[in-house]
């Protein structure tokens, strides 16, 4: 083991059985999910605020706490996305200390999935896979295809047949084999499980899932570091499979254990679309199990009716004193527009869900006005423009003459002409 690596292995979440390191996702004995566990003591004193600050401006600055095989040389500068203070959105929803973690600009494919794929493919190579794949609602497909191309791996991607056109195109352009499956995500995922049984392929979210999921922790590390090495009071996070929200908490716990941040009991809030809300339904009923649903929402990236990590996510949210909510398709579209109009961030449908749920949590008083709250925006609006179809009129073409323009603008929005006096003083408008 080289000095930059931390000892880690797969262990069963339920019975604690160890499995070393191999492409395996479920315990042979109790069939529960496997998770990567680290020997945190082996990294104590080596993983510090200073060592992190000296690292590259991407997720590999946290490599000591990622399951990275010996000899792995990080290639792509993934992650380290902006954490922006959201004063304008805060003003609108009654929040004084609101932040947006903006993974809609994650490199290379504009979603937080770039993080998990980077870690999964590092392991795929170490395990000797030459073909990789995934079951995907879109963002994962884009990221797997792009990063596989960069690493020289072949990729076969399976998606539900009704996926947004932009997400299909954004997979095919990288030369990946894309297979549309006549079913929903849950059908696709089940098929991938059977394929992984028969073919010697590395499915990032099937047989490589424990490693893949660890990549999500980097969202948590970045939030803590970008807040000046302190933890927020609350996290609001979208939920599809239920993995991300749990891994952010795991990241916070590791930072506390290693002394990089002070202890804080962060509350976690989950966001889903009402048309596919098995986890929020479980939280609101106080369950630690999931009743599967048949997804029916335009938030396709969250449309997982039988989420693999759903039970654990529901349990965890309740443990932290958090809550989960779900919003309608109409509300999520308003959420997209609200975030764009207030903060200049164009997110996809999932981000509309998260924004709308955050607004509701403030309105309900579940999150206090002064508390430091981070809303996790995980994907880019350019991939789901069809959600905004018909929302904006196609404007008439105005003749390229000042008089024509003047007449036009006076007719539609005369206030636009009257410059703000302060701006005029500064020479910003004439």
């Amino acid at each position, binding site marked *: 083991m080289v000095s930059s690596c931390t000892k880690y292995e797969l262990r069963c979440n339920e019975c604690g059985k160890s499995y070393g390191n191999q*492409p395996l996702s479920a315990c042979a004995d109790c069939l529960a999910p496997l998770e990567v566990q680290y020997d945190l003591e082996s990294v104590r004193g080596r993983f510090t605020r200073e060592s992190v600050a000296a690292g590259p401006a991407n997720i590999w600055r946290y490599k000591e706490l990622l399951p990275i095989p010996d000899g792995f040389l990080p290639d792509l500068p993934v992650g380290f996305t902006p954490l922006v203070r959201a004063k304008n959105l805060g003003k609108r929803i009654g929040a004084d200390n609101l932040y947006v973690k903006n993974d809609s600009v994650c490199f290379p494919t504009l979603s937080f999935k770039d993080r998990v794929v980077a870690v999964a493919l590092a392991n795929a190579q170490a395990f000797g896979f030459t073909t990789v794949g995934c079951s995907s609602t879109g963002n994962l497909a884009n990221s797997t295809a792009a990063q596989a191309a960069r690493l020289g791996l072949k990729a076969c991607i399976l998606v539900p047949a009704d996926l947004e056109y932009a997400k299909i195109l954004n997979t095919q352009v990288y030369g990946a084999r894309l297979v549309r499956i006549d079913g929903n995500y849950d059908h696709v995922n089940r098929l991938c499980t059977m394929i992984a*049984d028969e073919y010697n392929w590395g499915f990032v979210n099937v047989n490589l899932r424990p490693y893949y999921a660890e990549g999500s922790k980097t969202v948590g590390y970045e939030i803590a570091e970008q807040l000046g090495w302190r933890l927020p009071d609350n996290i609001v996070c979208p939920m599809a499979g239920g993995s991300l929200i749990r891994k952010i908490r795991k990241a916070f716990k590791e930072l506390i254990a290693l002394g990089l941040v002070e202890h804080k009991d962060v509350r976690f809030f989950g966001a889903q679309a009402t048309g596919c809300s098995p986890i929020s339904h479980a939280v609101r009923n106080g369950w630690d*199990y999931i009743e*599967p649903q048949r997804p029916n929402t335009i938030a396709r990236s969250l449309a997982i009716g039988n989420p693999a990590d759903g039970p654990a996510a529901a349990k965890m949210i309740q443990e932290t004193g958090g809550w989960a909510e779900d919003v309608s398709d109409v509300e999520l579209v308003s959420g997209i527009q609200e975030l764009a109009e207030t903060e200049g961030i164009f997110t996809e449908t999932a981000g509309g869900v998260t924004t709308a749920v955050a607004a509701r949590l403030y309105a309900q008083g579940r999150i206090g006005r002064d508390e430091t709250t981070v809303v996790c925006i995980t994907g880019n609006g350019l991939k789901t423009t069809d959600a905004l179809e018909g929302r904006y009129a196609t404007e008439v073409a105005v003749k390229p003459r000042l008089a024509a323009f003047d007449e036009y603008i006076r007719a539609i929005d005369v206030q636009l002409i009257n410059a703000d006096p302060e701006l005029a003083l500064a020479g910003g408008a004439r």
Partner: protein
Amino acid sequence: MSVKIVLPTALARHTEGQKSFDSQASNLPGLLAEFDTKFPALSQNVKDDNGKLRRFINVYVNDEDIRFLGGDAHQFEDGDEVMLIPSIAGGCCAHGE
């Protein structure tokens, strides 16, 4: 009446490698009872200490989650394909390490 049972590799290790076989069971409890006698190791693997199906196992009847069909009460029909699969599965061919 006969239904076809399909298992992934993770479970087929308890059936001497058989990933597919016929069953006369008419519902899920009947199928689990059949496992008790035909494949005791499989039975032990898929059931918890209370004799109920483990919560990490999903059961599909002709591509539909049995929970959408009524669960234990759902009656199989002749020719149905019944699949048992861990909710997080995959990984059989450990190689490399």
